[in-house]
């Protein structure tokens, strides 16, 4: 079972090491990790995609809360949150194939970020599942290089009325 955790942390040296070290030590698997600034200069947001059973998720959240620099841990639940990922992919594109690839890109709203004599660099921002689909469709054409940012997310602006994103707040 996969989950996305959105973690607000103090913007202090070593904070990412403390989080990843705890994950490594306790044997939790990180599938993707994105770190960046937030609306507050002293706070960063870490978005983690993790693969675990449901009960370890609670354990992971609790262990994260014990880290002094961690301010808040929330799960971004499907349906209650927006998740996005940016991918850049360099695809083999001899002139004969170029039109077909660009048409494929259009379907997914992928931009052509760069164009060379034999290859195209696509840029796509989308839900991680859409990024996956685009990657699979492009792959047979000769995927030379690929980089994904890892997913980021936020709770929806309009929340479904019952369940807010689960927050684990101590006492």
């Amino acid at each position, binding site marked *: 079972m996969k989950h996305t955790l959105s973690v607000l*942390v103090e913007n202090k040296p*070593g904070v990412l090491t*403390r989080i990843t070290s705890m994950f490594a*030590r306790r044997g939790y698997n990180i599938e993707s990790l994105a770190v960046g600034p937030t609306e507050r200069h002293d706070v960063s947001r870490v978005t983690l995609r993790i693969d675990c059973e449901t*009960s370890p998720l609670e354990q992971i959240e*609790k*262990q994260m809360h014990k880290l002094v620099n961690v*301010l808040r841990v929330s799960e971004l639940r499907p349906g209650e949150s927006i998740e996005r990922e940016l991918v850049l992919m360099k695809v083999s594109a001899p002139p004969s194939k170029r039109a077909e690839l660009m048409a494929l890109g259009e379907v997914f709203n992928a931009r052509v970020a760069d164009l060379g004599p034999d290859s195209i660099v696509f840029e796509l921002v989308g839900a991680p599942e859409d990024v996956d689909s685009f990657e699979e469709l492009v792959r047979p054409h000769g995927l030379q290089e690929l980089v994904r940012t890892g997913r980021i997310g936020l709770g929806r602006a309009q929340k479904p009325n019952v369940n807010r994103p689960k927050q684990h707040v*101590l*006492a």
Partner: protein
Amino acid sequence: MKMNGADAILRSLEAEGVDVAFGLPGGAILPLYDAFARGTSIRHVLARHEQGAGHMAEGYARASGRTGVAIATSGPGATNLVTPIADAWMDSTPLVCITGQVRSNLIGSDAFQECDITGITIPIVKHSWLVQDVEELPHVLKAAFHVARTGRCGPVLVDVPRDIQEAAFDFSYPDEVSLPGWKPPRRGHERQILAAAEAIAAAERPILYVGGGVLNADATDELRALAEAARLPIVTTLMAKGAFPETHELHAGWPGMHGPKWSNWALNKADLIVAVGARFDDRVTGKVSAFAPGARVVHLDVDAAEISKIRHADVPVVGPLKPVLAELGRLLAEMPRPGSTEPWLRQIAEWRDAFPLRYNREGDMLKPQLVLETLQELTAGRDDVVWTTGVGQHQMWAMQYLLCDRPRSFITSGGLGTMGYGIPAAVGAKAARPDATVVCVDGDGCFQMTQQELATSVLEDLPIVVVIVNNGYLGMVRQWQDMFFEERFSQIRLTHTVPDYAGLARAYGAEGFTVESDDDLESALAEALACGRTAVVDARVDPREHCFPMIPAGAAALELVEFEDTVAKVSA
């Protein structure tokens, strides 16, 4: 007030009420030691090895309930603290370690005695700081003591580059800490406490399973009030030994790998386990899936992450144990109870009478168990004895045979199982409680890991009594090789006679006693306990003795092996 960083460290420690610090100087911490030379109210105990300093600080913390302070230089000084830090982490001992670091401009250049100690210790500290600006120093130290002591106790590390120690600034110690991400629970949830009370009132065979958290929470009075009000039997883990009087009728012994059969039966046959500041360690549970199969679990702990980590908690209560136990006791005193726990208490007492600790008293060699029995007889009823131990067979015998009626009177390395813990921990305990008779029950293997701290004991006027249960072997390893590796003994022989422990003690300026027979035992121990100086009693015991009962690793707690079982096996 204008001063340099080193003076600011000492003024900060003084403001925190630190009266003793343990350490060893070196290059990168020289400015701090210069500050010691210029004057402070803090007593500095000079260890012979930084590991010793760290364990002394732990022993001090465990004996006093205050936060221990250990100081070391950069590089090897700091890495020598890693074992005590890991030990304090596993046993939730409040510890502030202050290490020197190379000058800020040299960090990252592989300078002499440079190492990334904050990086090395990340998995074993609650938090750590590398001070990068002298202005931060007082705030960091304030935060360090706050974090070490609040929530679940544990170690923190403050790494201070040499130039920061030398930098001048305007010092003032902050009144408040600013740690927006550090929010230990301040009270338990009322509904959860009520649910816990209801579960206890409804249980026929409830038991309190008490861990070291009760000592850290200073909640032993509340625990006793609760147990007596609700007539609940109590088992105390190794870390909680002494948290509840062991001569009290409600004390049901010690659970786990070498706990008596009756204690393990009481815990495993209960219908309700009330875990209090305990963490269902594998040494207590044995095979988790077979542990206490018929029990519901109420789990009280200040650390939310311990709840349902190993064993599902039916009723979790996260909060500081002192108010939680007080409230629980108050609720139970008022609550109507459908049944009484007296039949259950009688059942446990029957098991106690049916399954006493036993060992083979025959043979021509001194028995290790007799050493502990004699120590118990010689100290029974005294309220001034503090025990420390190393790790191994002698530690388990100490748990079984020494009866501790007062909190903080039994200091041992539980979670990490650190051999060599006993001597330095005893020195630290003596520094915390100068009036106490501090006795380290040690093994010969453990003794040789930290014996150099006898020099600290003698020269710092911190006299301790070390009783070596000397079987000439790494005894617990021997026991495992004997029982589980078909008697293939491998690299365990230390010999009874090298070194000559009594002679070594005398070389350190301590008293030395050698005991080889039952007849000499009592008088040597009595003399050592009464001499008022550092003393080492080398009790040369039978290496063939195993520590029983024993739950073999991976076995269910109810499948524990008793002394009689092995006798039967051999004779069959």
